C-alpha cells in the first residue's frame, strides 16, 4: 500500500478496501492533528478533531472529485472542524470569562521550557509576551501564523485550508510576525542584557 499514490488509495478505499483508507490516514494523521492543535489548542480537542475528521472523510470520500487532492481536502476538513470546535468551546467558556479550555496557550503552558537554566530565566516573560500578542491577533492572522508555525503546513496548504490566496496567507503571517517583533524586541533585549550581566 505504501507505494501507492493518494489517488490510487482513494480509488481502493472507495471499493471498500479499508486498508487503503487506513494508509491514507497514516499519511495525514499528524498533519490533521497539528492543524487542529494550532487552532483549538488542547491535545484533547485536537484528538477529537482527528477522530471526527477521519469519520467525516470516510463518509464523504465518494464526494471527493479530485482524488489526487486528498491531502489538501482532508486538511481543509480538519481546519473547518477545528474552527467549529473552537467556536463551541468559546460558547462553553466559564462564567468568569476565563480563557481556559479553548486557548492555545493554556495547553502548552507546562510543556516548555525544559531544563535549560537560560531558557528558564527568559521563558516566563517572553512566553507571556508571545501569548498576549498571539491571543490578541485577528483570527485570520492568528490561524495563518499558527498553522504555519505549529502545523508546519506550507503556504499553499494554509491557503487551501483557509480558502484564501497564498498572497493573503503571507500577508497575514507577515503582520503577525511584525506584531510579535514589535512586542518582543524590548523583552528580548532586556533579557539579553540580564544574561550578559549574569555571565559577567
Amino acid at each position, binding site marked *: 500500500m505504501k507505494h501507492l499514490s493518494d489517488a490510487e488509495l482513494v480509488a481502493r478505499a472507495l471499493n471498500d478496501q479499508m486498508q487503503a483508507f*487506513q494508509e491514507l*490516514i*497514516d499519511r495525514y*494523521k*499528524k498533519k490533521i*492533528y*497539528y492543524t487542529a*492543535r494550532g487552532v483549538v489548542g488542547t*491535545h484533547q480537542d485536537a*484528538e477529537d478533531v*482527528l*477522530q471526527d475528521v*477521519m*469519520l467525516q472523510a*470516510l463518509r464523504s470520500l465518494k464526494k471527493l472529485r479530485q482524488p489526487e487532492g486528498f491531502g489538501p481536502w482532508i486538511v481543509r476538513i480538519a481546519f473547518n472542524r477545528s474552527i467549529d470546535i473552537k467556536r463551541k468551546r468559546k460558547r462553553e467558556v466559564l462564567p468568569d470569562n476565563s480563557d481556559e479550555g479553548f486557548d492555545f496557550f493554556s*495547553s*502548552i503552558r507546562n*510543556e*516548555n*521550557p525544559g531544563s535549560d537554566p537560560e*531558557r528558564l530565566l527568559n*521563558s516566563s516573560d*517572553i*512566553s507571556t509576551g*508571545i501569548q498576549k500578542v*498571539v491571543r490578541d491577533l485577528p483570527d485570520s492572522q492568528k490561524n495563518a501564523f499558527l498553522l*504555519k*508555525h*505549529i502545523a508546519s503546513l*506550507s*503556504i499553499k496548504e494554509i491557503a487551501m485550508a483557509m480558502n484564501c490566496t497564498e*498572497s493573503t496567507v*503571507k*500577508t497575514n*503571517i*507577515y503582520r503577525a*510576525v*511584525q506584531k*510579535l*517583533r514589535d512586542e*518582543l*524586541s524590548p523583552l*528580548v533585549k532586556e533579557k539579553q542584557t540580564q544574561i550578559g550581566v549574569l555571565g559577567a
Partner: protein
Amino acid sequence: MKKARDIESLIIDELFDECSSSDKAELDSILENDSARREEFNSIKETMDVVSRELKVNDPGEEYWDNVWDTFRNRVLVEEREAKPSLFRFDQMAWVQFWKPALQIGVVAIMLVLGIFIGKQLSGVSAPAEGDPDSTYSDITYPYQEEIARKKNEYMLGVADSSLNESRDIIDSFMEVNPDQSISDIDRFTQQQDKMGRILEDLTLLRASSDDIQLQRYSNLFDELEIVLGEIATLKGDPMQLQYEVRSLQEGIRELNLRERLKEVRFQTVNDRR
C-alpha cells in the same frame, strides 16, 4: 522596483524555507541594497527564532500515533452498534435509493387521492344511500302520483341526455388511449371497451323510454358501467393518461347517479306541493 508586498512575500518564504533559489537570490539582492529592509528582515528573523524556541507543542508520542487507527475503528464499530435499527434507516438502503423516484411519485399520488377524498367529504356531497334508494321515503305519501312520475321521468331524461352526451365525449377520448401494455392487458382492455360500447348502446335505446322500470334499468346499467370502468382502471401498469380518462369518466357517471337524482326530484316535488 519591487513592491513592498512582494518583498514581504519573499521574506516569509525565506523565513519558512519555502524560497526557491531564484527568489532567494532576488531577496539577497534587495536586502544588500536596502539597509532598512535588511534591518527589518534581521529583526523579524530574530523574533521568529525566539518564538520557535518558546512556542512549541509536545508530540503526543508514538503510542498515541499507533493507537489512532484502533481508536477510530472502535468508534466506528460502536456507532454502528448504537445506530438505529435498519428499519428506521430505510433511506440509506440501496433499494430505496434505486426506487426513490417511483416512491416519491407514489407518495404524491396517495396525497392527491387523500386530498380529493377529504375535499369531497368537506364539500358536503353525501354518499348514495345503502340498500333500496327509495326506502327512506317509502313512508311519504303524496297525491298526484302520475304527475310526479311524469316530472320525475322528464327530469331524469334531461339529466340522462346531458350526462350521456358528456360521457360519450369522455369515452371517445378514452377510446383513443393506446395503452402501451402487454398483449394480455391490451386484450382485456379491448374486451372492456367492447362491453362498454354495448352498455352505451343499451343506454341510448333506453333513453326513449320514460317509465320507472326503464329508469331503474338505466340506473343499473350505469352501475355496471362504473364497475367495468373500475376494472379498466385496475389494469396492470395503466399509463397516466388512461388513469386520468377513467377517473374523468367515473366522475361523469357519478353525476348520473340516478338514485340520488330520484330523491332530489321527490323532495323538489313534495316541496312544490306544499
